């Protein structure tokens, strides 16, 4: 259920950030990559790869290009990132920032390789790659901050402090 909600939210965000009234740099963001990155925290590499494949298919469909290249790139990148996360035991804010940056970098690299191997012209150059990686990192950082705030809000310590203040 949470995964489905996250995917829907990411699809909506994907469409929204590409609107003409949004700051142009945010147009490079791939919110579905954040969903794939979230899957790398607990899933084994193969299952994270399947989740990435689904997210990549959605990216392909939403971008209006040929179906497949982004799906393959996200699947491979998610599997690699899941293996790295499990190996390094990344958790907390470091997980979010590192996994999103790594996933975005791998995704862009693999996508470039796949598209060029198919004999097609990539949709963006180095500046676009950097923008995608940077916005993914910012997204990861934002999620990390939000997660930290959520934990603080629901922490028993905060409840005890509030209860003491009421007395």
């Amino acid at each position, binding site marked *: 259920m949470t995964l489905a909600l996250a995917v829907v939210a990411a699809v909506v965000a994907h469409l929204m950030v590409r609107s003409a009234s949004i700051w142009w740099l945010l147009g490079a963001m791939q919110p579905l990559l954040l969903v794939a990155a979230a899957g790398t925290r607990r899933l084994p590499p193969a299952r994270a790869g399947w989740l990435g494949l689904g997210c990549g298919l959605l990216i392909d469909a939403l971008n209006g290009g*040929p179906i497949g290249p982004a799906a393959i790139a996200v699947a491979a990148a998610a599997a690699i990132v899941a293996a790295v996360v499990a190996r390094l035991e990344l958790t907390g804010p470091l997980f979010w920032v590192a996994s999103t940056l790594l996933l975005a970098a791998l995704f862009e690299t693999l996508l470039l390789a796949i598209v060029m191997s*198919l004999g*097609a012209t990539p949709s963006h150059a180095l500046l676009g790659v950097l923008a995608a990686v940077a916005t993914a990192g910012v997204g990861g950082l934002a999620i990390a901050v939000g997660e930290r705030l959520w934990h603080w809000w629901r922490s028993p310590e905060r409840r005890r402090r509030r209860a003491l203040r009421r007395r």
Partner: protein
Amino acid sequence: MATLRVRPGVSLAFACLALYLAAAAQIRHPQGSSLSVAVASLARPAYRATEAMGTALAALREGWRDAAATRVQLRQAQAEIEELRRVNQLLAVEVTVLRESDRLIASLPPTVDRVVLARVVARDAVGEHVAIIDRGRRHGIVRDAPVLAAAGVVGRVERVGEEVARVQLLSHPQAAAAARVNGSELEVLLTGGHWPTITGLPAGTVLADGTPIFTTGAEGIYPPGLLLAFTRAVTVESVLTPIPIQLAVRAVGVTVVAVLPPPPRGRP
């Protein structure tokens, strides 16, 4: 029935390979697929909604900016109004002083010369019975100079400073003046205090209410013929009986006075 069990990693690789081939097939037909057209159609409402939100946010931001500018203008206008109100009050005071000065000059006897107009800057008409005026020795004010208002005699200069002078009001307990009730040639003594009185009228004299009392100049301070006070309706019982009177000038309402030169010494 035989089942094919494939490890997730291998199946993922097969799926990727299949997608690669599908992508290659799609790239061979660059005119685009119906899927891309459908996605573009579905995405249009999201784009419009985002654009509407952006427009609303921009309008809100503009509104906030306008509101802030309006608040600044309002504060400036309020400050200007306060300043104008203050200036208006000062001008009103100036106009009042000028009108009183005009009345005062018009009321002065034609024989009076070298008059110094002064503003009353402070007064204690109840306790000390004095007033402070903004003219002093530098302006030619001397001790015992008579002080007039438009309605009559205010008092005399008691002390003189360089820039200010202190006036003893007629209501002061130690104030006194030689006086004459209008219609009578007898000289009486007007004395101040909270209840100013005159003494020296013969017994049986009947005074009407509001009869003017003028200076005679016998005490050597006030020139003759200046209005001092008004009588009350009373019958004099004896020549020593103090008869209450009403001073012509209420010191609390005086803002401008005329300081006359004192009469030459030796004059009766």
